């Protein structure tokens, strides 16, 4: 006698199973038998995502939302070409549902306006928005439970600033801001933030995020726009990164270093990052200011263990004086590279190799070898002519006994 075990499972176990099916298949289980007719309607997560050849239509989402009953804890919408009206009506239903996890990624064709109802979903803990226009309403009380916020390719309309949005979320731990434009200063006030990724256009940066552990900061911009930055007397390093006492891993892009180099660059680092063990930088090797900033940064990390550095070069600049920047600027400093164990030098694949690039790289390598007492690994990645380089490297004076060279 074949017993129907599965239908006797309690509703929450049926939910566990149904939630792991693509939404269309979950809905289809309603034709299996009488006990499964309404089983799917109580699943707590609704994920509308394209899988292989199928598309999600507005009609499907509408119908699922109509038939669904019970709390909706997670709602994910991807690759639905939804118009603004559809989103509005879905948001009404979701805001009544104490939703915790919301992810909306619209097709990249036309940014979708986020309805203001989103901002009354006060139970939100995780919010991901992509390709959208955000207008934070005046009476926004903040998402008091939000711990993760990822915003991709977004625009802010009205008088909203990113600062408004972020400061309303005191528990925020993870923040990603990707492809956006912020006029003026990007001010991030987030006392509990641990991870931060920024890639966008802004003129100035101020991070009040003392608990930050991992930072990834890139900037799309031009020299001309950094007027505010230039005017400041205080060092930009201090202004932007001064609060990050707990930071462990920091990755910054070339234009951000440019920005840091705009204002005064102190000889001695303004802040010491006592937990910083990993730095990844991209430098233009012949900009003396950038090199100064990079060195300042290295000096401010006494327990730095891993350094990833990538050298870029301008095509049109012909600075012969650039040659000994590293040597000039790197006065012996009690903190510099004293704990460094791994140095990875990266050549980007599509950058034309110039001999000056090589020289700068070799200079830097020489410097590090000379002053790093516990260096174990020096890896050079994506380099075209390892043999020559290897011989040169071998000839440098090494402070540490067991340095291993490797070309990857």
């Amino acid at each position, binding site marked *: 006698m*074949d*017993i*129907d*075990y*599965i*239908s006797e*499972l*309690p509703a*929450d*176990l049926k939910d*566990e*199973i*149904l939630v*792991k*099916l*693509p939404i*269309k*298949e979950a*809905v*289809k*289980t*309603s*034709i*299996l*038998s*009488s*006990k*499964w*007719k309404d089983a799917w309607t109580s699943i707590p997560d609704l994920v509308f995502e394209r899988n292989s*050849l*199928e*598309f999600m*239509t*507005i*009609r*499907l989402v509408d*119908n*699922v939302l109509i*038939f669904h009953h019970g709390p909706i804890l997670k709602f994910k919408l*991807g*690759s639905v*070409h939804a118009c603004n009206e559809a989103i509005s009506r879905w948001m009404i239903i979701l805001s009544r549902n104490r939703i915790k996890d919301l992810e909306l*990624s619209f*097709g*990249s*064709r*036309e940014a979708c306006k986020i309805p203001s109802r989103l901002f009354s979903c006060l139970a939100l803990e995780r919010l*991901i928005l*992509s390709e959208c226009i955000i207008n934070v309403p005046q009476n926004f009380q903040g998402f008091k439970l939000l711990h993760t916020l*990822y915003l*991709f*390719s977004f625009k802010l309309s009205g008088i909203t600033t990113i600062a408004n949005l972020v400061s309303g979320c005191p528990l925020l731990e993870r923040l*990603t801001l*990707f*492809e956006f434009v912020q006029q003026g200063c990007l001010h991030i006030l987030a006392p509990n933030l641990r991870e931060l*990724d920024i*890639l966008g256009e802004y003129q100035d940066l101020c991070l009040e995020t003392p608990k930050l552990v991992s930072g*990834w900061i890139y900037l*799309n911009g031009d020299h001309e726009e950094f007027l505010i930055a230039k005017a400041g007397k205080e060092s930009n390093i201090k202004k932007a990164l001064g609060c990050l006492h707990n930071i462990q891993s920091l990755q910054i892009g070339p234009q951000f270093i440019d920005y840091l180099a705009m204002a005064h660059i102190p000889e001695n680092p303004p802040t010491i990052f006592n937990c910083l063990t990993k730095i990844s930088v991209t430098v233009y090797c012949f900009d003396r200011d950038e090199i100064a900033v990079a060195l300042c940064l290295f000096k401010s990390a006494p327990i730095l263990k891993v350094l990833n550095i990538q050298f870029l070069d301008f095509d049109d600049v012909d600075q012969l004086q650039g040659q000994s920047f590293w040597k000039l600027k790197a006065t012996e400093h009690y903190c510099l590279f004293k704990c460094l164990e791994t140095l990875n030098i990266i050549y980007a694949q599509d950058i034309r190799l110039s001999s000056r690039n090589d020289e700068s790289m070799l200079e830097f390598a020489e410097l590090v070898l000379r002053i790093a007492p516990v260096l174990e690994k020096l890896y050079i990645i994506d380099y075209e002519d390892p043999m020559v380089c290897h011989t040169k490297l071998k000839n440098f004076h090494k402070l540490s006994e067991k340095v291993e060279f490797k070309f990857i």
Partner: protein
Amino acid sequence: MIRGSQQMPESETAIIKPEAMKSYIWLQCADGSIQQVEEEVAMFCPTICREILKTGSGSSKNYAISLPEKVSPATLSLILDYCRFHQVAGRSNKERKSFDERFVKVDTDQLCELISAADSLGLKPLVDLTSRAIARMIEGRTPEEIREIFHLPDDLTEEEKLEPLKNVNDDPRIRLLNRLYARKRKELKERQKQKEAKVVEERKDERSVDELLSFINGEEGSRNSKTTKGKKKNRRRKEHSKDSSTADAYHTEKKERANMSGACTSSGNVSSSPNRNQGLREGAQDPFALKLGEDDYTDDELDPAMQEELDREVEDFARRLNSMWPDRVQEILSLGQDRRRNSSFVGHF
């Protein structure tokens, strides 16, 4: 819920521990059978753990912990195997994963018992693992297959069965394909009957397929795929992706869309030869029909060669739909749907 056993008298707790190097916990199933298991293994189950800590039971045969009804002796053994493996701290993720994969290679009845037992013992990761395994058995299968695997009674009325399908299966592309399929069948049948006009018919057939395609492109004429290059870039951004798409891609996309919407609104004004016109209008009916119209597909006997040709053509069409213009097709079709609701066009054939 575990029904706790009696409290242990104070004096006995002092005596139990010292002698054995390993301590064992005694577990009793609903049918009365008792199993003995190492303490650390038993403690891996949250509910057993709580019971031990709360009431101190389980440390001797007489004071075995009673397990809920859902946990049969055989299932209990399996679960204890699971616990025994996973409670060892040093195992790598890879090892754990392959153990898990092997663990759920049991028949469906066993899986159902496992998930139930795991739930009552509070083993959330095992519930997760088993539910995923069960979901895998359901996914991609027809209702009949699922009913067979899980021994489900087929006790819904036809009407009840139809209800959700209407909501789910409204993918306009699928309906479009079905319509095309039926239409092609009809045409091929006619072709069989009218052998003299065969050549002309074929040409008309092919043309109408192409016209359908170009209509869907939103263009009149045969401007082809040169604008789809921008489309092929995968620009869906997942969490933590560090790629930045270029402004160029954006611009091409935006332009394409502008082209499309323009073409869409002028789709009614086809002013070419009558045959082409008819073809286009017929094509126009397909995406705009709301009715499911499954009764159109009566199974006629077709010459197997014809059947093959038919299948090939539909497959080709489907492939083209899917691979080249998925998003645009979708867009036009859904735009079309919205417009359709306003008109009183009944549209089916």
